[in-house]
């Protein structure tokens, strides 16, 4: 790669071609402030102009985030004009921004707040110029506060380019620029899949999860409630981020200890029902293969993805596995199997899920998720919400001792653990399906082809003369590309396709700690596979608690009880919002 030399703030710097001024400056330790730019999602629309710099010989300032450096270019990043332009823009943003930091969900993680501090803004010299807008709290999982929106348009890019949904868009409201929803429809009535990727990229508190922590506190305080909690695979390696631990740190034991201190009556692991999902979904796959069922089978454990296919590809719903997600399986079992076993009234069992995911809030509220006769999962907390509860309780999380999950649904294998990363469901399924079909132990449990952040991955596993062909995609734009191939008849010889809604899988879910960047996603994925390697059991069918559940209660995969409790149906939702 050819390189060239340029000058930034009087210092020479050598950079490769196609370097932006922002990147070139970073090379010599000059941090140019940014607000709208977000490299991870390729968002460089140049909206905020906070990153402006001077270039010798140019009459106007240029934006460092999206202007390529050039040979011989002389850049100044800290002149009077630069500081003034940045400050004026920032003050005009603040003039129209609610001063609500102490009560704002993003207090402490807000990029606007950080910039105001960095620019030493002590007074805003402009008046307010826009009216107040109502909150949009029509969606189950997320709330939009247009008053805090700073028009960076990151959400528009992530929703359209990364997720290929396009539920939010840039337009005008009352003649003024605004980020709004498709046809100004309340978000809950659009095709928004409630994945929360917009929350992760929003620099401020303009989109956030519906906070359900109060409902959990209330249940914990209610002597008539038997409160159980389950923890999703991806939370095991992410919660620590919020307590100063490195992303990817395995905090499983500390998380269990924290729940005990908060007063939960039983602590279960969604990894357990992830193993159960493999038993059900794997059996379903074999049944489809053996009996000429609809193939390829699509995974169904990601509610953002399920809502996506319901909106955009309803004609492909027969491909979707009927298996519920691990969260819903655990909820249903907690109010049936577990309640029976413990002699509890199922109405008194209160199920809390801790999920990396906002879409799980939507999933738990789906009307069909009442296999036990009542809502199977009462409250879904995101990883972020759990952290808030732990802080409120004053727990020194990072230094808690380790504790173990409760029986009979507390044991998960490595296969259940890897559900949290893209490719993990596929790898877990292949580990089990191979051994069940061939009767031979799988020599290498690490199926590297399906791991990592490539958008679409493939693997093939020989199974008694049949080559099982598998595809894996994460991020809905990648899912859409795969669905187009499926529709075009190009995937006829594939058997199993794993789709996870969020980039990187659930470790990058919309309920995860902020920030969640590509680097952090990779670190969490590292943590997931490290935990898998460290566990004694790494195959779902070897999970003794799952085996016992079948013996004592379910009888067999795809049996009558399984169908009742662990499988579900879907709704063709179509594409257009209702426009109300």
């Amino acid at each position, binding site marked *: 790669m050819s390189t060239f030399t340029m000058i930034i703030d009087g210092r020479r710097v050598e950079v490769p071609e196609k370097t932006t001024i922002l990147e070139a400056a970073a090379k010599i330790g000059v941090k140019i402030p940014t607000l709208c730019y977000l490299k991870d999602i390729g968002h460089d629309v140049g909206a905020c102009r906070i990153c402006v710099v001077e270039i010798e010989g140019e009459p106007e300032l240029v934006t460092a985030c999206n202007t390529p450096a050039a040979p011989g270019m002389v850049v100044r990043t800290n002149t009077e004009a630069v500081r003034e332009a940045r400050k004026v*823009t920032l003050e005009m943003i603040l003039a129209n921004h609610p001063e609500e930091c102490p009560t704002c969900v993003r207090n402490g993680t807000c990029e606007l707040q950080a910039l105001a501090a960095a620019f030493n803004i002590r007074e805003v010299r402009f008046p307010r*110029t826009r009216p107040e807008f109502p909150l949009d709290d029509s969606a189950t999982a997320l709330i939009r506060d247009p008053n805090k929106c700073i028009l960076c348009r990151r959400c528009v890019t992530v929703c359209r380019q990364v997720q290929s949904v396009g539920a939010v868009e840039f337009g005008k409201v009352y003649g*003024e620029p605004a980020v709004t929803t498709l046809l100004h429809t309340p978000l809950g009535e659009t095709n928004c899949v409630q994945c929360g990727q917009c929350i992760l990229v929003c620099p401020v508190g303009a989109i956030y999860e519906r906070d359900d922590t109060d409902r959990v506190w209330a249940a914990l305080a209610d002597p008539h409630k038997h409160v159980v909690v389950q923890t999703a695979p991806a939370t095991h390696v992410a919660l620590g981020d919020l307590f100063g631990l490195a992303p990817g740190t395995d905090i499983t034991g500390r998380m269990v200890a924290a729940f005990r201190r908060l007063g939960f009556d039983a602590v279960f692991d969604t990894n357990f029902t992830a193993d159960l999902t493999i038993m059900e979904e794997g059996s379903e796959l074999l049944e489809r293969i053996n009996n000429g069922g609809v193939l390829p089978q699509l995974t169904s454990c990601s509610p953002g993805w399920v809502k996506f296919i319901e909106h955009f590809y309803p004609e492909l719903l027969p491909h979707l596995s009927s298996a519920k997600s691990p969260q819903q399986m655990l909820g249903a079992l907690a109010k049936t199997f577990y309640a029976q076993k413990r002699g509890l009234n199922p109405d008194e069992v209160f199920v809390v899920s801790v999920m990396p995911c906002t879409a799980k809030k939507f999933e738990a509220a789906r009307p069909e998720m009442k296999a036990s006769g009542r809502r199977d999962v009462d409250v879904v907390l995101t990883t972020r919400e759990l952290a808030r509860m732990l802080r409120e309780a004053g727990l020194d999380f990072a230094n808690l001792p380790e504790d173990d999950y409760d029986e009979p649904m507390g044991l998960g294998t490595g296969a259940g653990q890897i559900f949290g990363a893209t490719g993990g469901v596929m790898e877990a399924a292949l580990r089990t399906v191979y051994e069940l079909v061939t009767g031979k132990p799988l020599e290498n449990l690490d199926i590297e082809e399906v791991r990592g952040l490539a958008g679409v991955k493939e693997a093939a596993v020989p199974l008694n003369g049949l080559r099982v062909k598998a595809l894996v995609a994460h991020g809905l734009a990648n899912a859409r590309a795969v669905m187009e191939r499926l529709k075009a008849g190009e995937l006829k010889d594939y058997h199993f396709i794993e789709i996870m809604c969020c980039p990187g899988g659930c470790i990058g879910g919309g309920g995860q700690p902020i920030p969640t960047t590509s680097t952090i996603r990779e670190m969490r994925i590292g943590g997931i596979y490290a935990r898998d390697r460290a566990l004694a059991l790494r195959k779902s069918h070897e999970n003794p608690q799952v085996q016992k559940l079948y013996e004592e209660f379910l009888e067999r995969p795809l049996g009558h009880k399984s169908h009742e409790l662990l499988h579900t149906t879907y709704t063709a939702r179509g594409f257009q919002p209702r426009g109300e």
Partner: protein
Amino acid sequence: MSGEASLAEERTLGEFVLRRVHAESCGECLPCALGTRQIAAVLNGTAGGNGGAVEAAVWRALGRAMRQAAKCGVGRIGGALVEELLDRDPDFFAPGRKRNSGDQGQEG
């Protein structure tokens, strides 16, 4: 034509063009979107809080920021115009000044 009359005309014309710039602002970049909104608010008497009592020096900074940092010619021209009008009349944006009717050049 007396000097007085031409100053008044200049002001009328300046306000007209500034309103047009606000109406034309696409909203894609913040110095222009927010700057023209500040301008429109003072011209229309709709600014909140202190009613738009922004000092001339701050208006000048706003004009300069728009001219130098806006993404396209709309905001840059608007910013240059703010600076030019202030050169001619430092009180151009003073609040409470009699303005021309707000609907000139405004989009519906």
